[in-house]
């Protein structure tokens, strides 16, 4: 039985165990379930912040991303740990990256919108690569002839790039249209 009053350390231990063993990032709502309604959101946030700083000197760090919180290895271990996996991580082509960037910054966009910006036909495999990675999906159809699919980036995309929201993407250089000397 869970006691009425648990020490802060006990509460943090519960969160730590849950976060470390979860295969997916844990959202606040999910973590609230751990305490069967006896936890305020604000308290939970505070506990998570404390837990995060508890791990400051460790090899893992607690981070908040789009779909919740997760533990991950500190980035300085990336190179060394990479030696464990025989396969090199995928390297995306410029076409794939530019398509991804257009979807990320201009979403929701159709294939036609992407072609308009890049000036070339969009290769179907590029979109498929991104869909299979779980980074983009179809969120609807534009109500024009042909009803083209509208693509947007997913939470998974933000998670994989360690971001909480699209606002955290690198800023896009604003088009200096006003400065045009015409």
């Amino acid at each position, binding site marked *: 039985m869970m006691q009425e009053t648990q020490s802060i350390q006990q509460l943090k231990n519960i969160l730590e*165990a849950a976060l470390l063993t979860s295969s997916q990032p844990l959202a606040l709502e999910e973590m609230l379930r751990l305490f069967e309604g006896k936890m305020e959101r604000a308290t939970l946030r505070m506990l998570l912040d404390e837990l995060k700083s508890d791990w400051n000197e460790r090899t893992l760090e607690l981070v908040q991303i789009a779909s919740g919180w997760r*533990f991950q290895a500190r*980035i300085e271990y990336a190179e060394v740990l990479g030696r464990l996996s025989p396969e090199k991580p995928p390297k995306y082509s410029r076409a794939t990256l530019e398509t991804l960037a257009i979807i990320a*910054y201009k979403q929701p966009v159709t294939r036609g919108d992407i072609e308009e910006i890049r*000036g070339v036909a969009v290769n179907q495999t590029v979109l498929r690569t991104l869909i299979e990675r779980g980074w983009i999906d179809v969120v609807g159809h534009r109500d024009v002839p042909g009803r083209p699919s509208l693509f947007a980036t997913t939470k998974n995309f933000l998670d994989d790039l360690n971001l909480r929201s699209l606002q955290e993407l690198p800023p896009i*250089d604003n088009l200096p249209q006003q400065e045009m000397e015409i």
Partner: protein
Amino acid sequence: MLPPVISARLHGEPIASLPQDLYIPPEALEVYLDAFEGPLDLLLYLIRKHNLDILDIRMADLTQQYMSYVDKMHAAKLELAADYLLMSAMLIEIKSRMLLPRPVELEQEDDPRAELVRRLLEYEAIKLVAQKIDALPQVGRELLVAQACFEHVAKVQLPIVEMEDLLVAWRSVLERAKHYTHHHISREQLSVREHMSLILRRLQQEGMLEFTQIFVISEGVQKMVTYFLALLELAREGLVKMTQQAAYSPIYVQASELMA
């Protein structure tokens, strides 16, 4: 803005850098083409390489340089050239509009180059930001998500069964068994493949049949089912074509060979 480094060989000699002038040997063109992500990319390259002011493009020079690329491209890699040709048309249109005298009141707002410049800048912004996105740490590349192993040992909750439940279950088994008692499946003499031939033969004589004409109601349900299976099989094997103009409208069956 230079395109990515290319490692390629031409006549066995490694090509270390893009040539300084715009001439590209046709054999090497395919290699260079792959370095550009389309006409906008190529234009940007030409503009940046010659240190041209993107906001004050000399259309004649740019168009000429661009066209010399496209001409060679046209010969070498046609399917790629389509996008590039569209851009040539746009460049020439802009040039021609700039040659035409314009009404004074329009001069301020309507530079024919404005749309091209807007697209070039937009594409350049995307191109740069795509590189920035790629530089972000990524899960599976620089980021490794921690996961400790935890085996959920759920307590198995066995359902409670009352005597009454067993009785109800037993009765329903008996009830269902009744349905099967008289249902003897005997090997039917009608073969599907035989009926496939029957249908094909009729189609050869009568050309096209309406879906319902295939079936002769008086011959009984089993026969009709066999006809239906035969028809499906024919369609699957591509021996007949079934067409329907609209939902709920009559379906027509036709032998494929007759249509050929």
